[in-house]
């Protein structure tokens, strides 16, 4: 089978890493030809993912000249290019509901949401995504393929060593610093608010973007996988305070190396985190509550060890990439063997209504604003006002209005949005 995976780029990201690994598994273990198709020009060189050099990477113009058995979009922007490829079947590997990456008024939010209306088969990595798609598109076929873990890079510990109170609680925070929903600064502040002795490590691929003054004992990154495994092993807790996730990988990787986790109840956390069993679940917007949970782990080393032992057991039961690759291969085989899916009138209609509603809200807001500004517009078109404005720019006008302008300078800058 010849499969095209459409990607925006091949930069360092959990989502891209998952796609590359699936493509690699299909090619190495299932005899498929996997092609990574870049839908836009790459500005930076590719991240050195394991096995990337074994895969064929093509641009859209050259991929358009080929035929595929299945073409798979892997990110909402790539879905727009999906049907440009000649493929017998089209699928969409949904790793998160990506509209949530954007603020409410951003046009990308609507665009990302509407890609789920496309007549494609869906493959997801988390049950909550599958259930959400099924709830809005009951007729859609949704396959479920959990992300595997590289058991060679993150081998499961036989048994985690007991760590007594003599050693400060080692907390690891991971994520892109400037991505608002990853909650990296929030996690750093929460760890910093601990009362018990602790050591915080921030693993941040883009260190330059870190806000100033974040409390941390150590800042590292970007970090290759083997070093990441060593960092997890050194850590007692992986602290993750994301507000948007598909299925977050770092706490699970930490489980493999004997670290428990403190996480927000972000979507997908329940794929493997069980509160009080292998980790603790904290709340969003509660840095002090999170700090108290970390303090509890720092003080109660029996609880910490219990959670770490169960974290290792959870990791042991988590599938390897080999097993995950089999489910992906089976899903793609199934997609190929089944007739192409029908477009969803129901969800599309709902989305069109939602877009119209959003547009209507904007028009209403604009009209309200226009009504509020009406006296201002009227004043500005008044011939006396126009004459007065012209007069203000004469030498006498400037001289007479100078004290007033000086007083109002700050306020005018603020209104215009000028920066100092």
């Amino acid at each position, binding site marked *: 089978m010849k499969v095209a995976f459409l990607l925006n780029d091949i930069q360092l990201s959990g989502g891209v890493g998952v796609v590359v690994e699936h493509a690699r598994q299909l090619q190495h*273990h*299932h005899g498929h030809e996997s092609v990574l198709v870049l839908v836009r020009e790459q500005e930076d060189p590719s991240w050195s993912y394991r096995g990337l050099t074994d895969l064929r990477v093509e641009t859209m113009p050259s991929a358009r000249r080929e035929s595929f058995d299945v073409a798979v979009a892997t990110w909402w922007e790539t879905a727009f290019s999906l049907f440009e490829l000649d493929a017998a079947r089209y699928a969409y590997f949904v790793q998160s509901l990506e509209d949530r990456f954007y603020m409410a008024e951003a046009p990308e939010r609507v665009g990302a949401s509407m890609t789920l209306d496309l007549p494609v088969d869906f493959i997801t990595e988390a*049950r909550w995504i*599958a259930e959400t798609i099924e709830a809005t598109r009951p007729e859609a076929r*949704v*396959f*479920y*393929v*959990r992300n595997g873990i590289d058991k060679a890079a993150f081998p499961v510990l036989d048994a985690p060593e007991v760590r007594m109170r003599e050693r400060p609680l080692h907390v690891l925070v991971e994520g892109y610093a400037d991505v608002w929903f990853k909650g990296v600064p929030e996690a750093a502040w929460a760890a910093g608010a601990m009362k018990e002795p602790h050591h915080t490590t921030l693993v941040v691929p883009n260190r330059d973007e870190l806000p100033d003054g974040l409390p941390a004992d150590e800042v590292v990154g970007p970090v290759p996988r083997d070093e990441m495994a060593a960092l997890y092993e050194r850590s007692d807790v992986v602290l993750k305070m994301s507000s948007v996730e598909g299925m977050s990988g770092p706490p699970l990787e930490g489980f493999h190396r004997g670290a428990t986790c403190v996480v927000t109840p972000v979507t997908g956390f329940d*794929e493997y985190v069980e509160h009080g069993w292998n980790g603790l679940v904290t709340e969003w917007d509660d840095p002090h509550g999170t700090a108290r949970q970390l303090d509890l782990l720092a003080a109660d080393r029996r609880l910490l060890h219990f959670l770490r032992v169960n974290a290792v*057991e*959870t990791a*042991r*039961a*988590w*599938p*390897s990439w*080999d*097993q995950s690759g*089999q*489910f992906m*291969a*089976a*899903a793609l*085989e*199934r997609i190929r*063997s089944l007739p192409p899916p029908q477009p969803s009138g129901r969800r599309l209609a709902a989305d069109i209504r939602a877009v119209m509603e959003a547009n209507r809200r904007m028009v209403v807001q604009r009209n309200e604003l226009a009504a509020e500004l009406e006296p201002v517009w009227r004043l500005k078109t008044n011939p006396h006002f126009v004459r007065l404005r012209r007069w203000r720019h004469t030498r006498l006008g400037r001289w007479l209005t100078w004290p007033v302008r000086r007083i109002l300078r700050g306020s005018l800058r603020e209104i215009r949005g000028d920066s100092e």
Partner: protein
Amino acid sequence: MPDWQERVTRESEPAIRVEHELRYAMAAPIIAGATLWCDLGCGSGVAAADALGRGQHPARTVLVDVAEDALAQAARELRHEAVTTVAADLSSAEGVQRVRAELLEHAGDGVRCITCFETIEHLADFVPLVGLLTELAEQHGFTIIASVPNDAFWSLENPHHQGSWGEGAFEELRRLLPSGHVTFAQLPLQGSAVAPTGDVPAEAHSVDVNVDAAGVPSHLLIAFGPETARVAVGAGVVQVDLAERRRWERERESHLQYMECELAKERAEIRKMSAEFADWRKYIHELEEKLGLPLSGTDAAEQAASAQNGAGTDDVTQPLPDQSQST
């Protein structure tokens, strides 16, 4: 495989036997009088024979397993009229293709049923088998009942199982199968009974059991195909054979102790050999010092050896020292 009891025999623990029998009992109403019944990964056939008992036999029975000896035993145990055995590796496309050909040859017009219990988790690659099962159900009207263990709950690392199976993997599998499938949870039971002592015959008891389907299952089952509605659910309890259980557990403990002892002995032997080796090396180093040679096994010796190799012709291997001269 005594410790994991992967293949059910007449000597297997009663609880394990009843667990296997119950699965076959689910399929019994469909198998009885079917045109074709195929048991994929049939093993010894003991559980199937006990569960299907004296019920109506299918017109044709196809037994599939990777082990020839298991197939022969299963055919003996079942005593069905028309039995075909197929030795095939279900993790290979070739093996699955042979099974497919065999099944389509004997498919006939009536009810066709496939049982595939505790097999998928043994396969290094389950993709060909899943493809076959979906094809047979969708295109050829087969009814299929399959099961996988909930190993993930206990984080069991069964050496005979490929990969980790549990509720997550079962959900992944479920979504690959045709719509209209029905899932089941097999839940373990525990109990006890009181009986008069003395020379009294065995007595059958009916037991009321409250089964909470939300409990943690030991196994997960799925049925799909036209006859799915006929799958029978039920419960089974069996008297624990404490004598056998004690034997099994003590055997395991004593074997473990024995192996640990063996291991300690081997380790002592290795330590002794290492000490002897160190003595020899010390003696060799003393000789080398007297002869003014670099000490073998050290960085200096390695460098000298590589320099010597580099100085010579590139393709000529250095001759080994003549052992007859050195002795």
